[in-house]
């Protein structure tokens, strides 16, 4: 760490070149534009997210929240501007970035004809998770018993969502990008998600959540971005500085 940037509180213009040290920003977007067809879903957005934060993306439908999450996952090309996520340049290193993030989109990314257990095991296998980790993930989401043997197609929307979250746990991501993670879940499921996200952040992962659920996301978030018209209108809430979560390693990574 260079001492020059010390007092500047990770000034926005600072060049984030170099290895990702704990206090380095995990996501830095500068005037980023992402295009869906001809439509600029993100119209020049600039944000900085630090390690260990839980960022709540708030805004009306069509504001660009989903696109922002997909851009940060390396799933969409950057049309204009610059961006760097987990030390990877969004223009050139999306291949390297994608395995480092965990995404929960609108859709669950499940194979509807396979059982819950098969789905979680498959997604665990793709990232090399051990069988015990997969079992633990199923257990944690309350999918371990009878449900695990049912095809996903026969589950309710909430149960499918739980399965997707179990798949997400089995993957040890450094950056969690969640689009409406609470949708379809009952109260207990929502509590599970909240606890999970807190634990992930405490153990050094970074979380970005797009949500319309104020009473859920509000208490959870350490920073809030108001997204509207494909840009950030403002930041609010108890935005933590880099120093506040300086050393997440002691929390361990028990997931």
């Amino acid at each position, binding site marked *: 760490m260079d001492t020059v940037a010390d007092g500047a509180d990770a000034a926005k213009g600072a060049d984030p070149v170099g290895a990702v040290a704990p206090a380095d920003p995990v996501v830095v977007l500068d005037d980023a534009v992402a295009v869906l067809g001809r439509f600029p879903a993100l119209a020049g957005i600039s944000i900085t997210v630090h390690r260990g934060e839980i960022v709540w993306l708030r805004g009306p439908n069509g504001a660009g929240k989903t696109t922002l999450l997909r851009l940060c996952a390396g799933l969409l090309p950057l049309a204009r501007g610059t961006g760097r996520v987990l030390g990877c340049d969004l223009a050139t290193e999306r291949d390297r970035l994608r*395995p480092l993030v965990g995404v929960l989109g609108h859709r669950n990314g499940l194979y509807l004809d396979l059982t819950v257990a*098969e789905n979680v095991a*498959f997604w665990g296998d*793709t990232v090399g998770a051990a069988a015990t980790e997969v079992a633990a993930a199923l257990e944690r989401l309350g999918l371990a018993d009878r449900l695990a043997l049912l095809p996903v197609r026969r589950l309710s929307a909430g149960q499918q969502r739980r399965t997707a979250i179990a798949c997400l746990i089995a993957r040890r991501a450094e950056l969690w990008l969640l689009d409406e993670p609470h949708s379809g879940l009952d109260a207990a499921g929502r509590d599970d998600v909240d606890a999970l996200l807190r634990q992930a952040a405490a153990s050094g992962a970074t979380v970005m959540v797009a949500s319309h659920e104020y009473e859920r996301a509000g208490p959870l978030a350490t920073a809030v971005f108001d997204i509207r018209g494909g840009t950030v209108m403002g930041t609010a809430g108890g935005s933590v500085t880099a120093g506040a979560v300086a050393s997440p390693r002691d929390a361990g990574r028990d997931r």
Partner: protein
Amino acid sequence: MTWWRTAWLIARRDLLVEWRSRVALNQVFPFAGIVMVMFGFAIDDTRLMESIAPGLVMVATMFSLLVLVQRSFALESEDGALDALRTAGVSSSALFWGKSIALAAQLAALQALLIVLAVVLYGSSVRPAGAPLLVATWLSGSWGLATVGTLYGGLAAGARGRETLLPLLLLPVVAPVLIGATRAVEAALGARGTVVDGWPWMGLVAVFAVVFCVGGTLAFGPLIEE
């Protein structure tokens, strides 16, 4: 996670989905069978049918290939699994091989069924001397069609109008397999020429399989990338 293990994981997953949903078994195979029966109605000439049976088998395979390729990518896009695969760090070449292996297995089963149907419906018979040629053509044809189908299926998967784009892209490309496999099977079944005449045709099919296997391994990533 080695490359081979990933490819195998994908192949196993695709075959497991097929085993659970039985779409190929319950819908595509009967479709191919009914195509054979319809050819029988349309041609209505036993001697002619016997001599063109190999061609009809390959044409029915081509039609079924289109349906199987669509299905192979529909199960990825049904619930957004393609994005999940991309963020799981699955390399595109491993994905290509995995899906090709699964598709080749289904095609091999399908062609075996169609050959049996040709024997039953059109009166074709397998010469003992032609059996090795038939098996070699069967395997290389299945692999060639599977690789080229996966390659172009992946390109069409995310596109508007994919149902119509896929045949437009795929059918001109598979012409060498259609020609080569038909001639080789004709030789093997004794519909035309000697068995020895069939081997160069099998070679053509094998060359096709190798070319598109290599081409697909290299090209699949850029084609499906957004």
